C-alpha cells in the first residue's frame, strides 16, 4: 500500500508519478485533459509556455533510452524549465558515491524534479522516499515494474482516436511478463473501464498472477485479436530474458508476430500501437508498423504533451499544509 500512497500528498494530489496503479479515474482524466491543452502549444510559433520558468528538472537515466529521454527533455523545455541530464555511466556513482549522496547533492543545487529511469524495479520509489519535501519524482521506467507516462500517453492516443473507453476491446500482445509498459497500461485501462481487456502471449511470457489484474488471457493470436478496437504490440525484451522462454525469433514471429493478414481479425478501424523501439520482423511486420492503422508515431508526439501535463501538474500544486514551499 505504501508504494501507492507515496505518490500522493496529504490532499490526494499527485506529488510524484511512480505508477498508474492506484491513480483514480478522475486523476487520469485530468491528466489527459491537461495534455489536450498542451497539444496546442506545438501550434505556436514559440513552442513554449512559461509555466515552469525557474524550475530545474534533472533527468537521471541509469538505463539507455532515446525516445523517453528526448520527449521528457522536450516537455520540460517547452514548459520553460531548465533541464539537466546526468549521464550515470560517467558520473560519480562509478567513483563509489552512493546514489542517495548524489541525490542530496542535486537537491542542494535547488533541483525541483527528478525524472528517473532505472533497470531495477522500485528504483523511482526508493528515490521518492528519500527526496527533500520540495522535490518531485517521475518514474520514466523501472525494471519490469512500471512506466506510467508511457501508459498515460497510450491512453491519450486511444482517447484521441476512439473517444470513449467504455465500448472498447483492447488486446495487449507479446511479452507481458517483462513489460513495465503492459503493467502500467493494464492498471490504467482497467481504471478507465474498457469493455474488454485481453492479453495475448505464450505461457512463458505471462506473469503468474496475470488474471488477478482483470484481463482475459489468450494464447492464440487470431482469437485474441478478434474484433479488437485497439491492438497494442509489445517489444520482445530480449535483453531481459534468461533461459529458454522462446524457441527462436522466427518462431515467435510466426506465432505472435502481427502481420497484415492477422490484423484482419481485428475490427477494420482498429488502431495498432507499439511503445517502441520496434523489433521489425520479430513482434510486428514493417508493413503493419508503417501501415495505415499504425499510430506509433502519433504516440511519440503525444508523449510530449502528456509529459508536459504530468510535470506541470506535479510541480504546479499549491503548497499543501505542513509542506515546505
Amino acid at each position, binding site marked *: 500500500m505504501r508504494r501507492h500512497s507515496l505518490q500522493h500528498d496529504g490532499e490526494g494530489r499527485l506529488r510524484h508519478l511512480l505508477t498508474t496503479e492506484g491513480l483514480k479515474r478522475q486523476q487520469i482524466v485530468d491528466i489527459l485533459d491537461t495534455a489536450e491543452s498542451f497539444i*496546442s502549444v506545438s501550434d505556436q*510559433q514559440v513552442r513554449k*509556455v*512559461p509555466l515552469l520558468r525557474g524550475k530545474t528538472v534533472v533527468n537521471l537515466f541509469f538505463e539507455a533510452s532515446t525516445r523517453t529521454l528526448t520527449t521528457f527533455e522536450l516537455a520540460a523545455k517547452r514548459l520553460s524549465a531548465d533541464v539537466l541530464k546526468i549521464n550515470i555511466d560517467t558520473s560519480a556513482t562509478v567513483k563509489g558515491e552512493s546514489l542517495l549522496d548524489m541525490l542530496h547533492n542535486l537537491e542542494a543545487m535547488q533541483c525541483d524534479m527528478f525524472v528517473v529511469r532505472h533497470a531495477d524495479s522500485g528504483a523511482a520509489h526508493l528515490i521518492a522516499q528519500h527526496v527533500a519535501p520540495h522535490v518531485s519524482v517521475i518514474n520514466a521506467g523501472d525494471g519490469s515494474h512500471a512506466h506510467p507516462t508511457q501508459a498515460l500517453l497510450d491512453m491519450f492516443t486511444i482517447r484521441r482516436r476512439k473517444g470513449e473507453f467504455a465500448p472498447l476491446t483492447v488486446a495487449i500482445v507479446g511479452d507481458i511478463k517483462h513489460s513495465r509498459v503492459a503493467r502500467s497500461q493494464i492498471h490504467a485501462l482497467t481504471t478507465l473501464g474498457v469493455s474488454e481487456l485481453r492479453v495475448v502471449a505464450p505461457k512463458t511470457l505471462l506473469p503468474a498472477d496475470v488474471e488477478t489484474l482483470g484481463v482475459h488471457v489468450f494464447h492464440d493470436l487470431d482469437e485474441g485479436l478478434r474484433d479488437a478496437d485497439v491492438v497494442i504490440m509489445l517489444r520482445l525484451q530480449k535483453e531481459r530474458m534468461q533461459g529458454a522462454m522462446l524457441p527462436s525469433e522466427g518462431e515467435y514471429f510466426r506465432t505472435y508476430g502481427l502481420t497484415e493478414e492477422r490484423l484482419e481479425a481485428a475490427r477494420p478501424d482498429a488502431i495498432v500501437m507499439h511503445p517502441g523501439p520496434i523489433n521489425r520482423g520479430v513482434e510486428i511486420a514493417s508493413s503493419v508498423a508503417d501501415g495505415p492503422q499504425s499510430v506509433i508515431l502519433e504516440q511519440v508526439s503525444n508523449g510530449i504533451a502528456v509529459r508536459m501535463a504530468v510535470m506541470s*501538474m506535479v510541480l504546479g500544486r499549491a503548497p499543501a499544509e505542513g509542506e515546505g514551499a
Partner: protein
Amino acid sequence: MTEQDDIEPLIRQMADELRARLEAARVRDALMVGIHTGGLWVAQRLHGLLGLEQPLGELDISFYRDDFSRIGMNPQVRPSRLPVSVDERHIILVDDILHTGRTIRAAMNELFDYGRPAAITLAVLGERSGRELPIQADVVGRHFDLGEHEHVKLSGPEPLRLSIVEAP
C-alpha cells in the same frame, strides 16, 4: 447583490463601437479572440453581430498566469485555439471584466507566442477600478464603481448576466 439583466444593449453598443473603429483604421480580416470563459461568451455575441469573416479564436491563459507557483495548475484548463495566423493581423481581444489587468497581460504574452500581431484592440463588457498594470480597454460596455469588497461577475452563457457580489 444587484443584477443587470439587460446585457444585450451593452453588447450591441460595443459592436457598433468596434465596427466604427475597424472602419476608421481600415482594418481588414481582423481576428477576434475571446478569453475563457466569460470573455469567450461575450466574444461569441460580438462575433455574430460584426459578421467577421475569420472564425472566432479562443484563449485559455492558464499556462501564462503569473500566480502559477502560488495557486497551482488550473485543473480545468481548455485548449487555446487560434484558427488563423496572428502574424500581421489585427486582433480584437475580448474579456468579460477588466480589473487588475493581469489576465490581459497573460493573454497578450500568449498571443505573441503565436506570432506578431499588427495591433491588438481590447474590448471588455465591464471595467472597474483596481488596475495593477498599465493596461486599459479600447471598447468598454459599462464602467462599474465598486466598493472595496465588491466584485462584478458574469454568469452565462445563456442568459448572460452581470451581477455585483459582495466578496467574502
